[in-house]
């Protein structure tokens, strides 16, 4: 395993940036959907590819049915983000935006695409904007279920070796779901984030 990029101090800083982004996203989602939404990110890890796959087979995710959405981004940082939802999230989220509990599968997928677009946007933009960098997004698409995620993670010719795992606690009114945002960056982008974080932290220290 290559040594992890980003020092502990920088990871802390990144965690803060993501949380600020999540706060903005939650407020905006709540306003857009007319319901109480809380998004918090209790954890952010920098890890390599193999560990991501392993994590999906442990803990609360081990037995849950996964539905995943992917969204590429490009610009100052290039990468792909994957948002994972556990099973109860589908129906609940669909219900939340006004589709009935019996809503069609495609409608439920559409809701997940919308929510992932907002949360991934908040997460990646939260980082990019704080670092005064510009990032654009391609449309989100459905990645699929657990098997598809596994295939995605094990693909041989992928550029990224290290990624960010952002755990997101998703609370809607009294209910909460498991969801997780994975941000995968190829090494040059990771280095760019590292440099931008250096500038940010130096600026803070100087100021």
């Amino acid at each position: 395993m290559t040594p992890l990029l980003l020092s502990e101090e920088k990871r802390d800083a990144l965690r803060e940036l993501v949380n600020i982004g999540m706060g903005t996203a939650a407020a905006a989602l709540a306003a857009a959907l007319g319901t109480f939404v809380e998004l918090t990110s209790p954890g952010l890890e920098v890890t390599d590819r193999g560990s991501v796959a392993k994590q999906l087979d442990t803990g609360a995710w081990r037995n849950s049915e996964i539905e995943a959405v992917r969204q590429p981004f490009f610009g100052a940082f290039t990468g792909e983000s994957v948002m994972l939802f556990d099973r109860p999230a589908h129906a609940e989220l669909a219900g939340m935006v006004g589709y009935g509990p019996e809503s069609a599968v495609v409608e439920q997928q559409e809701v997940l695409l919308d929510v992932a677009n907002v949360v991934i946007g908040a997460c990646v933009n939260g980082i990019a904007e704080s670092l005064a960098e510009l990032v654009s997004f391609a449309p989100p698409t459905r990645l699929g279920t657990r098997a598809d995620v596994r295939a995605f993670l094990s693909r041989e010719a992928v550029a990224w070796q290290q990624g960010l795992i952002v755990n997101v606690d998703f609370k809607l009114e009294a209910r909460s779901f498991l969801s997780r945002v994975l941000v995968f960056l190829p090494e040059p982008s990771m280095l760019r984030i590292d440099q931008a974080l250096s500038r940010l932290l130096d600026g803070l220290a100087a100021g």
Partner: protein
Amino acid sequence: MASPQADATAALGPAGLAVDFLARLIDRINVGIVTVDADGTVMQWNRFLHAHTCLSPEQVIGQNLYDRFPELPRAWLERKLRSVFLLKNFAFTSWRQRPYLFRFDNHRPLTGGAEPMRQDCTFIPLEQDGEVKAVSIVITDATDTYESQTRLDEAVAALAAQSERDALTGVYNRRKLEQVLDAEMKRARRYNQSLSAVMFDIDHFKRVNDTHGHLVGDEAIKHVASRAVAILRVTDFVARYGGEEFVALLPGEQIAGAAKAAERLREAAAKPFTALSEVPLSVTISAGVSALRPDTADGKALLAEADKALYASKAAGRNRVTIFTP
């Protein structure tokens, strides 16, 4: 002397020209662009949309989008737009979830059939002084992607269907049987329902092959398979287990009912059939029947019991049905 028009263009200067070109580009680009303000009033309507709706910018701009196009999915679109105004974030829709926003004919009137154009949409927030003042909806034609995806899906479905069928008889193959057997066992146990299995094979099959040749042997196998499909219910499951041996799973059927079905099958299989335009030929089958009990270990055990009963039918002189007794 320059014409008044050239004077006007020259008067724009390089920056003005760039704005002018940009406006033309937006108008003529081969995607649909419609811009609305927070109240849903149309501010921009480009040529692509003009061409597909036969409604000019003059007929649409300044009007409320939903009044002008009552067929739009209003509640959904309003929610989508509202989120872009609030979140200042791009939003997207795909033909995979929502085939189209505006119903347009596809762009190939001669080869495209009657399918409406599939559309991907991007919602772009247009900010001024930190506030989203309008949202542009960019509509791209995704019909080509849709069509190749549809062909791919059909090919995959056909391959999947083939991979679970026996090529000679068209009934399910052994691999599929093993999958279904597990699922049926679980289902029967969960809902406390009956499940029976019938294992049957053609008597003296080697003799049929030796006497009439393998092609006629194949016909005999097809004959028995087609009798089984005809006699059993649609909810029953028939698979070729190997060679001249078959398995039928009868969900919801107790052992006595399964034995009756096996007996009907035995009678039907014994009727003469015509193989390869030769004289009519007949074969007989032997069958063994088993049923799920609380102490049945698994699907394999269920089949093993049917197999034992089948063996008993053979030992007792063939052309008969035997019920497994523990």
